[in-house]
């Protein structure tokens, strides 16, 4: 396989990862706020979130292995796991490494979820919220296609969707915090038959 093929494959899988991981984050928020997706029962949101996150991880593995195999840039296996130590654009590559490490933590704890306590799993799972923006910045900083129209619009769309979903999630949490028995009782007593 020529270096050029690997280079194209690396760029393509990177873009696919951006889209897939954005969808995974949106689905995760949907699971948490018990949103029902059109045409799916509520548990469908959950299984879609799980399935797509594994697909996204497969694309991420492809994305990383093409970068390592590609001889044109010098990215070693150590660079994949340890951030900011490589020779090739250490900052931008390092951000990708950080995002990968966070994803691995989320992945491993999710696979071992039955054996971990729910609280441990949930704490680690929240790292996904940190991983997504770090990966995004990595893509913008290191990506060959940054600045191309299609990539700009793709990035803008993903960021807009994620920000909107996160805002909805915060609003949901704030609403839930206000739902106490006393508050609900006041509402119920105000209602007339």
């Amino acid at each position, binding site marked *: 396989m020529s270096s050029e093929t690997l280079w194209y494959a690396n760029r393509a899988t990177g873009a696919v990862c951006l889209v897939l991981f954005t969808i995974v984050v949106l689905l995760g928020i949907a699971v948490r706020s018990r949103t029902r997706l059109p045409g799916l029962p509520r548990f469908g949101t959950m299984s879609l979130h799980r399935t797509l996150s594994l697909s996204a991880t497969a694309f991420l593995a492809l994305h990383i292995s093409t970068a390592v195999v590609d001889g044109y840039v010098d990215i070693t296996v150590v660079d994949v796991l340890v951030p900011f130590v490589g020779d090739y654009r250490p900052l931008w590559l390092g951000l990708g490494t950080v995002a990968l490490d966070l994803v691995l933590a989320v992945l491993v704890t999710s696979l071992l979820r039955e054996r971990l306590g729910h609280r441990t799993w949930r704490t680690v799972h929240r790292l996904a919220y940190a991983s997504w923006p770090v990966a995004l910045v990595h893509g913008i900083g290191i990506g060959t296609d940054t600045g191309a129209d299609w990539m700009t619009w793709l990035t803008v769309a993903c960021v807009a969707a994620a920000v909107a979903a996160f805002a909805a999630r915060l609003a949901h949490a704030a609403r839930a915090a206000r739902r*106490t028995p006393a508050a609900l009782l006041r509402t119920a007593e105000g209602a007339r038959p």
Partner: protein
Amino acid sequence: MTATFPDLHMPPRLLVPGATPADLATHHQRYGPPAQVDPEILLRTFAESGLTGRGGAGFPTYRKLVSVAEAGRRTGRAPVVVANGAEGEPASRKDRTLLRLSPHLVLDGLQLAARTVGAGEAYLAVEDGATWLESALAQRTADPLPVKVVRLPRSFLSGQAAALARYVSGGAALPTHQRPPVRERGVHRAPTLVQNVETLAHLALVARYGADWYRTAGTPAQPGSALCTVHVPGREPRVVEAPYGLPLGRLLPLEGARAVLVGGYHGSWIPASEAAELALDAGYLGAGVLAALPVDRCGLAETARVLRYLALQSAGQCGPCLNGLPRIAGAFRTLAAPGPQGTVRADLARWSGLVEGRGACHHPDGTVRLVRSALTTFAAEVDAHARGHCTATDHRPLLPVPEEG
């Protein structure tokens, strides 16, 4: 506060009428020294006695002891024993009365239960009177296991077994998932025996005097006696020890009563005519609250006040309880005021079905039991309210409901 009716035909066991709080010397003089028996024999005695839990569920005590001891052997962890004196039920006085007058009987029982299950830690959880209990504990130098007194926050649910175990472990006093049960994983994740203080006091007496003695009171099916908090209008609530099978009318004057609340705020309303035929039964007695509602009071208004309190006491953790109980309380308030009722009766029936059995604890179930029994017992009153008038003449509140806050 305490008294026994002269015609109960039962010598008092747990509470000596008119007595002052007993210190250790008085206690030993009254009941003799604590039993020193092998745990195996103790367990067999408890099984033969037929003693059941007095916290409200009426579960056979020896079965709980056996399962906690087994869980301890299986997990290799020494179990924890918690004496439950929470008494979150606002209408109940029996646990605090018992702890005030006979603390050493409860503490004897706690040591026995701890020995039977092989416990490594023991706690006594109460809302008030902790200082008095600590001074009682200080007198007991011969106890093999030290007991720590835990001060509980004032709430209806703090005495629920899982909530209690969570609080003693350092968490919030709120119910948790039912699985794994507290008897397998409770305080500090060890198998935990949570036992009502009255049960422990009975345990201490069964160990001293034997199963046959215990069975001399009560009926063959439900042996023994129970402490009841009896509410008669115009009088202080009284704590009475009564054998199972005793006609209810002997405990509570039923003439001039419209209905009786049995089993407390998670219990049921029974029309006075039916109550007159009833014998004291663990099936409905709950934690032993009996309250008479005179004919000049409105049962719907009383129930509405209690339901409002129960809704506010929801832990707010499970959706059906958090959303359902306030709506049920709001709807019942409409029912309690004479005037148009709209769809309230249908709403109450629907919401009751929706919340029942869907909580981590039984708070919604108990609340719904009260709602349904009130709608049945006070059906005529509901109709009168719909026509715009109330048959009650005295509108002062009757049942004790704590202030909000």
